[in-house]
């Protein structure tokens, strides 16, 4: 039930909603996406560059290999100048801590600069969340925040691609942040690093 409500919220916020079994299925799904082979993402018949949030790549090192095997060029911006490593990267993948059915939002924790630039500088952002972390209401996200309160952190509830209506209240998608968002719900629960 929560998943249906979540889906409605995601779609209302102009994101794509996809349910997949696990990370392997996600890589296959992206590899099969005709858009990602197109010129729009500047890649000809090759798969484009994909940025993985460093926290995700470190927790699940096999993802780097998985994407590489599927033909993607993988960037994990954890060097001295993470922004330069992913400036205008066409595709990025992050893992969310949880999802909120009420609003169709995902909660992404992005404390390190490398994690932040991934969600901010890419054009298309894939937000991956485990089905069993969907909470009904915003208060569920508040619980998570309280548990992590007092510790340094940058927790972002994200709901759709960036947008503006600043010019004559006319809605335009894609401003400073990504202009396309995929929300991927993984239905086979996984335990982060355990999966690696």
């Amino acid at each position, binding site marked *: 039930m929560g998943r249906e409500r979540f889906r409605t919220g995601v779609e209302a916020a102009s994101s794509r909603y996809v349910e997949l079994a696990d990370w392997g299925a996600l890589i296959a799904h992206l590899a099969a996406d005709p858009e990602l082979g197109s010129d729009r993402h500047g890649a000809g018949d090759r798969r484009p560059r994909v940025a993985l949030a460093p926290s995700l790549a470190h927790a699940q090192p096999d993802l780097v290999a998985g994407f590489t095997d599927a033909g993607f060029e993988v960037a994990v911006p954890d060097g001295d100048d993470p922004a330069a490593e992913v400036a205008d990267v066409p595709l990025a993948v992050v893992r969310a801590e949880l999802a909120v059915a009420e609003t169709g939002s995902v909660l992404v924790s992005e404390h390190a*600069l490398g994690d932040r630039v991934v969600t901010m500088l890419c054009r298309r952002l894939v937000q991956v969340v485990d089905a069993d972390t969907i909470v009904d209401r915003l208060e569920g996200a508040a619980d998570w925040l309280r548990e992590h309160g007092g510790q340094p952190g940058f927790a972002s509830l994200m709901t759709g691609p960036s947008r503006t209506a600043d010019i004559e*209240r006319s809605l335009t998608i894609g401003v400073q942040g990504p202009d396309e968002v995929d929300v991927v719900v993984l239905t086979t629960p996984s335990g982060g690093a355990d999966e690696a």
Partner: protein
Amino acid sequence: MRTFEERYRTALDDPDVRAGLTAFQRGWRESRDAAIAELEAAEGRSFDELRQELAAIKDDVIANGDRYLDQFTANAEAAGAEVTRVATPGEANEQITRICHDAGATLMVKGKSMVSEEIGLNHHLEAAGITPVETDLGEWILQLAGETPSHLVMPAIHKRKERIAELFERVLDREFPPDDIDRMVKAARTELRERFLASGVGLSGTNALVAEGGSVMLVCNEGNNRMSVALPPVHIVTAGIEKMVPTYADAMKQVRLLARSATAQPITVYTNFVTGPRPGQRQHILLLDNGRTAMAEDPDVAAALRCIRCGACANVCPPYGVVGGHAFGHVYTGAIGLVNTAYHHGIEAAAGPQSLCVSCGACATVCPTDIPLPMQILEVRSKVVDAGAPTPAGRATQLAIAAFGQRWLFDLGIRAAGVVTTPLRSDGVTRVPRWLAERPGVREHVGWRTPPALPVRPARDHLKKGKLDEPSRLAAQPLAGRTVQLFLQCLSDRVAPDIPIAAAKLLRAAGADVRLPRAQHCCGLPAFDAGEQDAARTMVRQTIATLEGVDDVVTPASSCLAMLEHEAPHLLRDDLDDLERAQQLAGRTYDLISYLTTGPGRLPAGALDNGDRTPVTVHRFCQSSTTLQRRDSVERFLRDVAGVEVVPLPEAEVCCGFGGSTSIRSPELSAGVLDRKLGCVDGTDVAILITDNPGCVLHLRGGIHASGRQVEVLHLAEYLARRLPGADATPGGASA
């Protein structure tokens, strides 16, 4: 900043402002109402319940500010932030400049921050050799144009896309077709992207400070705010001390109402909780007072600190729709700006803008923190008057109020005016001779609104004992054996006597014995509205004394009832005895419509159906909707009891622009609001417009006459009296 007068004139002279804002307000209203309805359905609770819950959270913070500030500070510092409390804009600017210098930064990217506008930060930075770059699209447009925000949420809403395209062409030196908004947005993205990455300092505002975790909550749609915060090596947070909420769960309650009230979204694209700096970053949080403690200590305005800066109060404000936020506000715009400006920028800065409020009450109905904005604006108005900073028009109003307070003087004056203007009277209006009408000082008052005819004899003369004819009787006699004290309203008594005369006919037709308390004068509303609280108190006390007793009191003026129910208890709050008398009186006083629908004079269906099927439309007196909660009761009554077809009037409950003294102090503004109303009337294609407040009747009548429209404006009482058995279908003869 330019003077208020300059800002007001500029706004009036710019045709884009009114056209753009009216469209914006209409669009917003529709989508916001849908978003709130959806929320009510999902939560199973009303908007009122939800906003009261949020208000209670904020009130706790206002009452216990220091405790939460200390808690927040301890938690934020534990997470690595440096928290500083600053008292004044000067101190804040100094701190921010110092932080930039210490970091060796010469470029600052800025997320949206109203506090930075409040303290005039950009000027200070530029003087100190630091270049601020606004990154919110609207703010960036304004920075390029050298302007300031005119709205809390949509800063550039006063600018049409054609002007923005011209601006982009000039600054970026390439072509921008005005209809290609996407191209403008993408250009901003490209221009700003490098700045985010090159900046030594990022500055943001704050939507909430969460005490329990030391987090700064920031919302945005574009992604600019979080980029300003997240990327540069130094992050400065500017926050008013009132931004505190105790818990994350409380913050979520704010989230639930904020985006819906601001942009009709369930939630903004990004809602960030920033707790301390990231590794390798420094974070400075500046907590600004600048008058907030003084507000918290003043019970008249403390609730204004609940504000979450959603902008909804501007979006429903009819005067805002005419002149926009540069005139309707100072740095803070909309209704809230008319209140908090007095505390953040001084009473002089507040004086001009507050005079534009028509007291329609619309703002308070949409405010997600339930701030009693209309009453607070009147409190600020009274402080402006007390501070002795009135404009020449203000001084004239003061004199008029003083004269008006003396009933005999007022009576004498108005009777004399009636005699003098007799030759000019025709069709219920005073035809001002051309030589006079075209003179400056007269022109702006009569060009758009023909003055009403001034009768020689007031209504009270016609309603004296022994002067009344035998009434025509309705079949239904709900008021048989009942005595009704008629409260005439000062304005109708002397300027529109047909209205109370018609009301008396109607009540008598339903069986009432109508009496006229002799000493009645004025409920005090005009004086209160002019900020003259002492004069208002005297008048309301006099009214209470005159109407004391046990009978029903009925008035054809809904505004007087609103005064007795809402403003009088507020004015008399320090005198428990008077307060109780006021409440007792309010308890047995009715406006005509409530008396005839839910009160003792309840008429059965069809009681006033005389077979006349000419369709009508209804303007709802604004305070009937916003303050008295009458909603569609006039329309329903006309359909059910009079059997007439009522064509719905678009924006029926939006103010007509009369606004008491506003239409005299700021005639151009009032004319603009009236114009919007008459445009809606045109759309109905109906020849009879009915409303139930005399002020609206006179204002609409004058406007319709001056514009040459062929629509008859009638007070509900006048319209209904025509439908009585044996009634003459033309207006009564009192004004002739």
